[in-house]
């Protein structure tokens, strides 16, 4: 489906969460190290309860959370401390993380605050042991250039990463504390994004700028994006947890499509005078002899409840995103009460539920033609909660598109998570003093070269092609690359990039301890290579030996392979071959170089560089030919 996004009034904003690669966590001295949960050496559990607030406005998200009384189990490690356990006040704000935030704020043309206040943002899903996330606003009023003009960067916050959810056991949730407290920058754009492609462009550019600092963590889960999307006749929907950049475009497309579809459904429902009845009917009897396995199972100690949605026939089954219907949205809401799902008459008979049962169900709830009945089988309490949630969602379908927080699904669709959070429940973190950020500190922050500028420079200075320049410019090895090129100006940049980015990676995958190879080894190796003393094909083998015996050095590795050193051995071999093939040389003249290359290389492959063989052969043959003349 393709839309004219301008005509739809599409507005989107991005919120990017990027972990910083600092030595210590934001509020304690623990390393920012992720651990295997098997290495956990201690476990404890807590309950969280919301603190009373005098806020006049009822917070919908807070209310929903309060309904759950969950036990939160935390896994601790020998790399976490009492601060993560919420058993000790936080230490002072990590200044390395502050510097890094200043750097990013400057790259985004932002205005940095004079004093950074750490706040407590209430979060009671257990992901923070304290029940709040510590966060501070570092900068505002920035912008990013894009193909559709400047996109405003409204806020940059420095905050602590939440604990990683390991397992949801229903009445308890297990979290791992290794991630809790890793510094994170949250960057929020203004809703200036106008199309799905634009969203992708902005996300990519922000990602490039963040990586350019060299101060951010890489890899899966170290960056997460949330997207706010609305169309003119829709509502603000926040889609959380997009880990794959390539999905952003699809997500914006599909959310726009969802809102268009829901707006259409609303119009049609209203024109049909559809309504929602909140009367919940006990229809357990209808299914007392059912052959539906799902219902049989739920009926053990459970009930079947149903509601009627007058005028909804056909709409519950109406698709609003590929593979997702209005009925799926009912089901998402119902599942929050703990039920496995719901059935609606738009999709029945099915799942072992027969025609007769559907008729009896319709009769029991008083559904006429054009009505849709929704049923659920579970315990009384859950079934009731589920249908109440469906009633709310169905009512919304008549009047509006609900503002909500949704979870990104891997295919680019999204599913209901919770209502949009109300005004932030925030209050000062009195345990952390405010940090003054002076103009001098801001001015003294050295700005990094952006990756896109670096790529241009590599193409220009090292004659790399765009692809390889991009590969090494984006890599964490770029400084190593530059150091090698600086020390060995004659080195082949292409070979250096391939070695750093491909060969070393592959050796590592084979289990070779490539971490033992240092910059000195590489510089010496590429120096010999540039002098023609190490053939291309031998680089991997040489590195393998160095990795295993790093202390004995490059020369010893070459000796072990029988390459490099003096070219004396090679010369005598070539002399012999030339002597024995004089007839051939006489016949072909300089054209004999190619075929003889093959002969020499058959013996010497991997030990000498082809370049060097070719040079020596040419030299010797031309000498011979001269003597013949």
């Amino acid at each position, binding site marked *: 489906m393709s839309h004219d996004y301008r005509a739809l009034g599409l507005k989107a904003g991005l919120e990017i969460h990027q972990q910083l690669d600092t030595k210590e966590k934001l509020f304690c001295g623990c390393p920012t190290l992720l651990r295997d949960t098997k290495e956990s050496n201690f476990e404890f559990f807590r309950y969280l309860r919301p*603190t*009373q607030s005098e806020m*006049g406005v009822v917070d919908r998200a807070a209310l929903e959370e309060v309904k759950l009384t969950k036990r939160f189990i935390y896994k601790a490690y020998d790399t976490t401390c009492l601060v993560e356990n919420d058993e000790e006040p936080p230490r002072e704000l990590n200044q390395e993380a502050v510097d890094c935030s200043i750097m990013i704020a400057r790259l985004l043309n932002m205005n940095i605050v004079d004093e950074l206040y750490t*706040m407590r943002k209430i979060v009671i899903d257990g992901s923070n042991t304290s029940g709040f996330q510590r966060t501070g606003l570092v900068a505002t009023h920035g912008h990013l250039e894009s193909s559709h003009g400047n996109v405003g960067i409204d806020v940059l916050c420095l905050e602590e990463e939440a604990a990683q959810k390991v397992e949801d056991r229903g009445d308890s949730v297990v979290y791992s504390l290794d991630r809790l407290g890793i510094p994170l920058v949250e960057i929020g754009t203004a809703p200036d994004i106008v199309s799905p492609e634009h969203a992708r462009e902005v996300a990519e550019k922000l990602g490039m700028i963040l990586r350019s600092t060299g101060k951010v963590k890489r890899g899966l889960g170290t960056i997460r994006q949330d997207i706010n999307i609305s169309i003119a006749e829709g509502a603000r929907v926040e889609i959380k947890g997009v880990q794959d950049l390539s999905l952003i475009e699809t997500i914006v497309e599909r959310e726009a499509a969802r809102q268009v579809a829901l707006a259409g459904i609303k119009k049609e429902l209203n024109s049909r005078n559809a309504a929602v009845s909140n009367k919940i009917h006990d229809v357990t009897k209808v299914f007392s002899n059912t052959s539906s396995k799902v219902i049989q199972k739920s009926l053990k100690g459970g009930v079947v409840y149903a509601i009627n949605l007058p005028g909804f026939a056909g709409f519950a089954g109406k698709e609003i995103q590929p593979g997702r219907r209005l009925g799926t949205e009912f089901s998402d809401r119902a599942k929050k009460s703990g039920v496995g799902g719901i059935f609606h008459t738009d999709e029945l008979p099915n799942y072992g539920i027969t025609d007769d049962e559907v008729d009896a169900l319709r009769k029991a709830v008083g559904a006429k033609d054009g009505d849709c009945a929704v049923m659920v089988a579970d315990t009384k309490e859950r079934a009731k909660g589920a249908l109440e949630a469906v009633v709310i969602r169905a009512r919304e379908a008549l009047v509006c598109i609900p503002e909500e927080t949704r979870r990104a699904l891997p295919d680019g669709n999204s599913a209901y998570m919770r209502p949009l959070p109300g005004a932030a*429940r*925030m209050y000062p973190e009195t345990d952390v003093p405010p940090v003054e950020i002076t103009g001098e500190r801001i001015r003294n922050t050295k700005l990094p070269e952006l990756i896109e500028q670096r790529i241009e420079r590599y193409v220009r200075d090292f004659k790399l092609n765009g692809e390889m320049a991009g590969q090494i410019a984006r890599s964490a090895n770029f400084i190593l690359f530059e150091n090698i090129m600086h020390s060995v100006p004659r080195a082949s940049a292409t070979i250096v990039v391939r070695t750093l980015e491909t060969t070393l990676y592959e050796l590592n995958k084979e289990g070779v301890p490539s971490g033992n190879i240092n910059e000195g080894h590489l510089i010496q190796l590429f120096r010999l290579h540039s002098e023609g003393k190490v053939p291309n094909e031998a680089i991997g083998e040489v590195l393998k030996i160095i990795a295993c015996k790093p202390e004995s050095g490059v020369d010893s590795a070459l000796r072990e392979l029988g390459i490099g050193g003096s070219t004396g051995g090679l010369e005598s071999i070539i002399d012999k071959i030339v002597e024995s093939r004089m007839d051939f040389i006489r016949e072909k003249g300089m054209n004999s170089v190619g075929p003889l290359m093959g002969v020499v290389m058959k013996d010497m492959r991997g030990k000498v560089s082809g370049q060097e063989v070719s040079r020596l052969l040419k030299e010797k043959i031309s000498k011979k030919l001269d003597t013949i003349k």
Partner: protein
Amino acid sequence: MQAEEYDKVRVEIKGIAYEGTLMPSQTDSIVLKLKNGYNIGIKHEFATITLLEKKDETNKLKDTVSAEKRKNEKLPRISILSTGGTIASKIDYRTGAVTSQFSAEDILLAIPELEEIANYNCRMIYSILSENMRPSYWVELARAVYEEIKNGAEGIIITHGTDTMMYTATALSFMIETPVPVVLVGSQRSADRPSSDNAMNAICAAVVATSDIAEVCVVMHGGTSDEFCHIHRGTKVRKMHTSRRDAFQSINSKPIGRIEYPSREIKMLSSYVKRGEKKLALHDRIEPKCALIKYATGASNESLLFHVGSGYKGIVLEGTGLGHVSTEWIPLIKTATDAGIPVILTSQCINGRVCDRVYDTGRDILKAGAIEGEDMLPEVALVKLMWALGESKDIEKVNNTMRANIAGEITRSTCL
């Protein structure tokens, strides 16, 4: 009109405008709470402030559930006496202000489970930081406890800051003979955070206050998890960690019992005085001029000299090991006891019993007239000495009191 704290304002500086609520500032910067909830600090010099809207005084949301209405006649009557420790807080997210709650209504609103356990009558005795506690406040508190019990309270809960809770618990143990539970409770993590230990501690305290454990005790977390609380005897408890939830531990004895959470089931771990066993009595005289002096390697005897010469009425020494101080101190101990100043020896080991009969130094200390504090904690010995001197000025009587077990502070056999 001039903008005041909590007014909505616009602050402009170098062409950038921020809108938000003007907050109280500790420094000379302007602190602004932005619409998104964040506070930021702005340097004064070049900023201009425009008033947008005066603060709204009317919109204080007050939940009006009367404690009267909530009363369930079948439940026991408990008095909650507040001394400054917070068991319930409220946050105003518009301003970020945190306020402690002391009324029964507000406490029940914050911890509704308490309603299922008892009916409450709340009294604020004083509101101080725990470190500013003084012996004269114990007297006031002991009298309030006495009054409440006399007026029919079937249990007492005292909310207290944790820093000096053990001193107050000890003082009350000596000052009150109680037929009902007297429970001190607090929180190690502030009540304004969702993870606070306040609610669980308060719920467990209420369970103990309605139980048949008629002792002065401290009820606090027993572990880092929200799993159970320990019931510590008031004279055997010590704060052993600066910040952990389970900072309170029974020393040289087992806790009286534990309360499982959230089941609220009590398990007894040692013997205790039962409800109604003792008759209500108040012994509220205290001699505050007593000192606890710690001996450290090389410490000069001048500090002891100072106290002896400055009108101190009793001295507790926190000695090394089995209860020793440098031999240089011994003549001064003699001077003190000769002058009618009791000197009690305790140990900085905290764990274990004092025994001054093993080494020469110890024997000399005893000869100089000092009393062994047995397995009493140094702080407990100090408070007991203040109380004993309030009861009698006669050194022999005081010494006998110090040797005797009055409120569970001295055990016959040291626990494993």
